[in-house]
């Protein structure tokens, strides 16, 4: 199936959960990521349950920048 991740088209075997998507996309520092799925920010408890389906949009957002 095809979905959009951080603005890029991605082809995956699916459907799959957000938690699985984090692994398959090799998302680094998963504890630091906020996930927006089809425009909705997910609770972390939803990562294991929320299914990603063809055509969905997923954004990984991080809040750890800003150096010296």
């Amino acid at each position, binding site marked *: 199936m095809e979905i959009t991740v*951080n603005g890029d088209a991605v082809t995956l075997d699916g459907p799959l959960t957000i*938690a699985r998507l*984090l*692994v398959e996309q*090799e*998302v*680094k*520092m*998963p*504890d*630091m*990521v*906020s*996930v*927006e799925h089809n425009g909705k*920010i*997910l*609770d*972390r*408890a939803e*990562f*294991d349950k929320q299914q990603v389906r063809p055509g969905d949009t997923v954004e990984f*957002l*991080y*809040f*750890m*920048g*800003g*150096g*010296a």
Partner: protein
Amino acid sequence: MQNDIPRHGLRPATVGVHGGYDDDPSTGATAVPIFQTASYAYGSTRDLADVFRGRAPGHVYSRISNPTTYALERRLAQMEGGVGAIATASGMGAITAVMTALLRAGDEIVSVRGIFGGTVSLFRNVLSRFNIRATLTAPDAASVSAAVTDATKVIFAETIANPVMDVPDLPALSEVARSHNIPLVVDATVTTPALARVKDFGADVIVHSTTKFINGHGTAIGGAIVDTGNYRWAEGRFEDLASLARKAGQMALLARLRNVVYRDLGACPAPQNSFLMLQGLETLSARMPIHCKNALRLAEFLASLPGVEWVNYPGLPTSPHKPVVDRLYGGIGGAILTFGLAGEADPARCMDSFVLARRMTNLGDAKTLVLHPASTIFAEYDRSERLNLGVTDDMIRVSLGIEDFEDIREDFEQAITQSTEN
């Protein structure tokens, strides 16, 4: 950096050993490496800019994050069942960062009384200068509720108030906080996740002095903030966090801390200290039962001595807090107690007579520690104010170590005998 997702369902003792870190991918090292670095090089300007803009993860500067500290944050967050954590340079650094992130001029804190003198000083001598007022109340829900005003934005409690040993009914305080849509911030330093996950009692934000039982050996100063995920920042009374929650969701407070408040206050831990805290977490669940059992046994022993006027340990059946201790902490009253000598016996003479126990201002060391709060942590307050804070002149505070109890008992017996002899 790890690609795994957090392990779910493991118990705190197991998470303390395995959580937050997988074997180092380049060497296989099972101990978390100490990343003794101030900053991090990137391959391109764009890569670094992506991290600054939040489009990619990464460490950019160790005041903001560091791989060793990150492992500590993950492990502690997993033990507490939280959505994330930030490690700080000290427990005071953790409380300061949380209060500064949540509050602005005109806001108020309602706190249970009898808490750590350093926290009282932060409220009275520092936050007050920014027109943030703190009201200290009795720890019961009715008193806390009565103290809440329209300006109250935080309810603050310690799991077992140090040094007065009150044990607030956290679920009841959480109900009060819920009814006003404000967060309950809980200092769980003296209980740690080894005794209880206070998230399950309704705590919204947890702060720790990791210097204490988490470190366990008195080798480093540190603190931590855990967001339990209980408070809905998107629907809360903090406009900036509600706005941030539209992008960060449950991570709103941690994002504001990491990207602004924690970053700008600068109270970050040294990587070496984070390593020591990680090691401490590995044995925390093994050590806490020994600390606590020694405390109960010493409390029982002191209560049997004619030279001792009073013993305050919430795990004793005679304590008014025992029902809450039974309900929340499985009957375990922690590892700290206070006592006073009978008659006119001089507490300093007793203090000076200890051979094994160390005269120190710390808690949660492997060693048994004794302190005279009135002349140390609370010395900056006059006597009437100290009494108001629950600190009597005769109070001796004991933090039980993990020594053989018989050696502790003999030390207390000889010290009390010497100080009560004419």
